């Protein structure tokens, strides 16, 4: 017993040094104020939290939640079929499929995101193509919209979802599907009653991963979103760097961490209660 708890020590040390302590610092700063030069002053108050209830910030807060949930849902919908296809393909196709998913990572993330600018801007590849083909007369405004941000987010985070679901599908005991088929299940019923519940852990891990990463991503919004589509992460970033209002940035961070935890808890609860639905399946 003693030995095993000793083994945990480095992990605990790591976690407290790089997660708990910084979090506590952020929580602490969120209750302080700043002086005219932007230095943090040790003066306890709730001003930073009060600022959050400005309609401007509430709107951004709401937009961020909606965009993150949309990104997660789209990633899930697009990734599951792809992961399923790869997991059930022959060994050669699997190697290829996984390579195709990971190869984009070899290219710098900023370059990949700017590539979307080239594609989406008014004089961009997509608009030119559509005009040349005669589908449209005037170029469409695609860049610097919420749609472009959503596209960028989904594009950025899809590999994480595909890989986690792929791993879950790969680890599933294939004999279970034979057993289901032997007991009279069609392919679709086997998928619904066996494959889906068996890969739920992968869906949950992937969804939380994508959701949390989306809420923290400000580069995609910066490059593809323009001024109107700021997310909470952009505000937090500007409060810490540009505006030098650390207490407000910290307060926003705290609020968003709590929001995410609540949403994740709700999501987990919904997923685990669905667990029991195998019973009522018809």
């Amino acid at each position, binding site marked *: 017993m003693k030995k095993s708890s000793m083994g945990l020590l480095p992990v605990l040390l790591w976690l407290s040094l790089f997660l708990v302590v910084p979090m506590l610092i952020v929580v602490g700063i969120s209750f302080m104020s700043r002086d005219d030069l932007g230095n943090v002053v040790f003066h306890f108050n709730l001003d930073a939290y009060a600022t959050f209830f400005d309609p401007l910030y509430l709107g951004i807060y709401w937009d961020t939640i909606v965009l993150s949930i949309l990104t997660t849902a789209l990633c899930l919908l697009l990734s599951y079929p792809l992961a399923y296809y790869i997991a059930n393909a022959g060994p050669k196709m699997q190697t290829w499929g996984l390579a195709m998913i990971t190869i984009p990572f070899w290219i710098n993330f900023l370059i990949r995101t700017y590539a979307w600018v080239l594609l989406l801007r008014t004089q961009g590849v997509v608009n030119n193509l559509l005009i040349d083909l005669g589908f449209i007369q005037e170029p469409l405004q695609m860049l610097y919209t919420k749609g472009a941000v959503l596209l960028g987010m989904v594009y950025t985070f899809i590999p994480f979802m595909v890989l986690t679901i792929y791993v879950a599908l790969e680890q599933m*005991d294939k*004999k*279970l599907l*034979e*057993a*289901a*088929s*032997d*007991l*009279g*299940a*069609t392919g679709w*019923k086997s998928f619904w*009653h*066996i494959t889906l*519940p*068996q890969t739920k852990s992968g869906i949950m891990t992937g969804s939380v991963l994508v959701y949390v990463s989306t809420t923290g991503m400000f580069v995609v919004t910066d490059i593809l979103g323009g001024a109107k589509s700021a997310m909470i992460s952009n505000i937090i970033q500007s409060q810490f760097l540009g505006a030098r209002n650390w207490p407000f940035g910290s307060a926003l961070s705290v609020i968003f961490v709590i929001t995410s935890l609540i949403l994740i808890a709700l999501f987990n609860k919904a997923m685990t209660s669905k*667990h029991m639905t*195998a*019973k009522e*399946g*018809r």
Partner: protein
Amino acid sequence: MIELSGVEKHFAGQVVVHPLSLTIKEGEFLTLLGPSGCGKTTILRMIAGFEHPSKGKILLDGADLTSLPPNRRDLNLVFQHYALFPHMTVEDNIAFGLKMKKLPAKEQQERIQEAVAMTQLTPLVKRYPHQLSGGQQQRVAIARAIANKPKVLLLDEPLGALDLQLRKNLQSELKHLQRSLGITFVYVTHDQEEAMMLSDRIVIMNSGKVEQIGTPREIYAAPTTLFSATFVGENNIFSQDGRLFAVRPEKLKAVRTEDGAKRIGEVLDVLYLGSIHKLIVQLEDEPMTVSIVFDFTDERPWQVGERVGVNWNAEDEVVIGS
């Protein structure tokens, strides 16, 4: 009941199952027996529908099911490692097949009750598979299959993962279950003792070919090939004048006087096994040992190193390959 006619299976140009024709009778307990890789599991999987025969036909009750998928065959398979659904309770596992058949809820309940009662699982219905012991999981696998009331139950080494004592208990339970259900069992095993104990008929297989089909008694008393002579039970194979014959250890006699003995040898070992004891004799003129089994009443004191004569009655010779 089930008829396999000219069924064969090739994998990547290699013959896994040579052409096989076999009729399995209604209510019969038939065992496919052979070492691993002999093709017995492939035959079972072809009957279940998970593999397609490269050639030949499989009929169930006269109806051709060669091209039907597994979910449309009126038979069930008990998997080697059970393949229980981990996210479902015992009850839900058993109900799965009944739901797929869209049986009325009341009948589902009745069938579940019946199946768990037969397999002594009644107190465990709310448990998940990971909360059960190996033997209990095995029972769930059987209950899940028999709740569907299949015409035929296929069992793929169902006791292979269990320890010896539990296996013995479950063997007699299985035999009992098959008698009370009256359905046809097709059983795959590599354990010849298990096959002998359970089966009405045994199909002995070796490298994709059928060596012999017969009742346990026929196979023990009159093996037709060298493989079945040695695979089922212990046997002594002699060759004389270009013919091969087998004599079971209990049919051999050890004699002190050397006159009249058919073979002469030296005692290599004396084994006391309680109800029987056994001599291992190294023959003098042939590079082989024979075993001789005595019943427990034989109290002659044999010494290791002693010269003995080995004798048998001509009618106990079983000629191989005739």
